[in-house]
C-alpha cells in the first residue's frame, strides 16, 4: 500500500472516497470503451479495456486493505461501520462491472471483420440506460442522495426487458438460420446483452448499498 499509517479516521475515510472515485471512473470508462469498441469494431480499444482490468483489480484490493486497516485501527460502529463496509461492497460491484466490460471487449475481438447477423440497435440502447444508471448510482453515493438512488433502482426493469427482447430476437434468428456462424455470433450477442444487464444490476446494488450506508435500511423497504 502506498499510504503510510492512517493518522485519523477522517483521513482514512477521505482516502477511501478517493480510491472509490478512482474505481468508479475507471470501471465506467472501461464499460463505455467496451461498448464503443463493439459498435465501431475497434479492436485496439477492446485491447485497452482488457488491459485496464488489472488496474481495477488492484484498486479493489487497495480498497479492501484500507477497509481492513480502518476496521482494525478505528473499530467503527453505527453509521461509520456501515460506511466502511458498504465501501468494500461497492468496490466489489465496480470490479465486477470492469470484468463485464472485459467480456464485451472480448466479443469485439471475436466479431472482428465479421458481418453481423443482426444490426446493433437494442444493445446500444440498453448500454445507454446502464451507463446512465452507473453514473447516477455514483452520484447518489458521493452526493449521499437517497432519492436518486431510488430512481436508479426503478430503472433496472427497463434493462431486464431489453435483455429478454434481445434473447427472443436471437432465438428467432437461430430458428431461421441455424448455421454454425449464426449460433456462434448469437452466443456472443447474448453474452453482451447479459453483461450489460449485470452492469445495471451492479448499479442497483450500489444504490441499495448507498441507502443502507446512509439510513441503515433496505432500499426496497423505502419504495
Amino acid at each position: 500500500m502506498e499510504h503510510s499509517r492512517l493518522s485519523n479516521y477522517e483521513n482514512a475515510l477521505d482516502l477511501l472516497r478517493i480510491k472509490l472515485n478512482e474505481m468508479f471512473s475507471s470501471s465506467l470508462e472501461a464499460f463505455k470503451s467496451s461498448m464503443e469498441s463493439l459498435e465501431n469494431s475497434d479492436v485496439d480499444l477492446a485491447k485497452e479495456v482488457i488491459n485496464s482490468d488489472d488496474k481495477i483489480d488492484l484498486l479493489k484490493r487497495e480498497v479492501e486493505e484500507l477497509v481492513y486497516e480502518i476496521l482494525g485501527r478505528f473499530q467503527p460502529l453505527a453509521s461509520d461501520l456501515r460506511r466502511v463496509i458498504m465501501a468494500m461492497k461497492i468496490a466489489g460491484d465496480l470490479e465486477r462491472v470492469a470484468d463485464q466490460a472485459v467480456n464485451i471487449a472480448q466479443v469485439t475481438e471475436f466479431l472482428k471483420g465479421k458481418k453481423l447477423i443482426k444490426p446493433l440497435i437494442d444493445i446500444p440502447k440498453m448500454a445507454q440506460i446502464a451507463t446512465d444508471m452507473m453514473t447516477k448510482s455514483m452520484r447518489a453515493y458521493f452526493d449521499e442522495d437517497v432519492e436518486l438512488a431510488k430512481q436508479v433502482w426503478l430503472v433496472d426493469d427497463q434493462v431486464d426487458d431489453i435483455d429478454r427482447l434481445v434473447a427472443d430476437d436471437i432465438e428467432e434468428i437461430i430458428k431461421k438460420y441455424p448455421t454454425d456462424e449464426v449460433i456462434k455470433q448469437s452466443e456472443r450477442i447474448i453474452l453482451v446483452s447479459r453483461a450489460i444487464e449485470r452492469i445495471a444490476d451492479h448499479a442497483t446494488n450500489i444504490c441499495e448499498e448507498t441507502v443502507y450506508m446512509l439510513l441503515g435500511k433496505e432500499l426496497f423497504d423505502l419504495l
Partner: protein
Amino acid sequence: MEVSLKIENLSAYFGEKKILDSITFDIPSKAITAIVGPSGCGKSTFVRTINRMNDRFENFRTSGRIILDGEDVLSKNYPLESLRMRIGMVFQRPNPFPKSIYENVAFGLKIHGIKDKKTLDESVRSSLKAAAIYEQVKDNLSLNAYKLSGGQQQRLCIARALAVKPEVILLDEPTSAIDPIATKQIEDVLEKLSEDYTIVIVTHNIQQAARIADYIAFIYLGKLVEFGKAEEILTSPKEKLTNDYLTGVYS
C-alpha cells in the same frame, strides 16, 4: 424475550439534581445487557439504584418502580438482604475482603446463616469454577485474596457474588482497572454466566459492549435514548444521539 427486571418510569435524585429521568425498559432474562453512555450520564447511578446501593445517602431518592418477580424492589418494604441475595453486584475496582479466598466466597453464605462445612465447600468450589478462577487457586484457598492479581481479584469478586445464587448480576465497569488479557477472561466468564444469569454491565467501553452484549441501553443526560438488540444498536441505531455517540461525535 423473557423479562428479568422491569424498569418503570425510574427517576433518581441527589438533592434537587435529577440524575435519572423517567427511564422505562425491560431488562431481558439470561442475557447480557450493557448500559452505555458518556461519563456522567447516570449509568452507574442506574445500576446502583437497582441494587439500592445509594439508599445510604440521605439526599438520595427515587421515583418509579423496579419490578423483580412482580415486586417493586425500590419499595421500603422490600428487605435489602433478600434484594442483595437476588441481585449481586461487582464494582469497578476489585474489592475483595482482606481475608482468604475461601472466606471471601463463603462470606455471603455465612451472613445468611449457612454453616454446614460441606455446603460451604461445595458452594465455594462451584462459584470459583463459574468465575473461571478455580483451577488457579484450588490448591491454596487459604491464600489472602490481596495476593491475587487484579484480574484474579475481580473474578474472585464475581465468584463471591455468585455464591449466594443471585438471579441478576450487576457489574459497574468491571474491567476498567485491569489489563486486556484479564478483561478477555472476565468477558468470557460473563458470556458463560449469561446462560444462567441476567447480567447488567455498565461500560464506557463501547467495544466491550460490542463484544459481549446481547442488548444495549444507551443513556444520555439521565434519559434512556435507545434500548435494543446489540446488533441493531451497533449497526443501525434508530436515534441520531445514539449514532453520534457510537461514531464519536461526543464522548
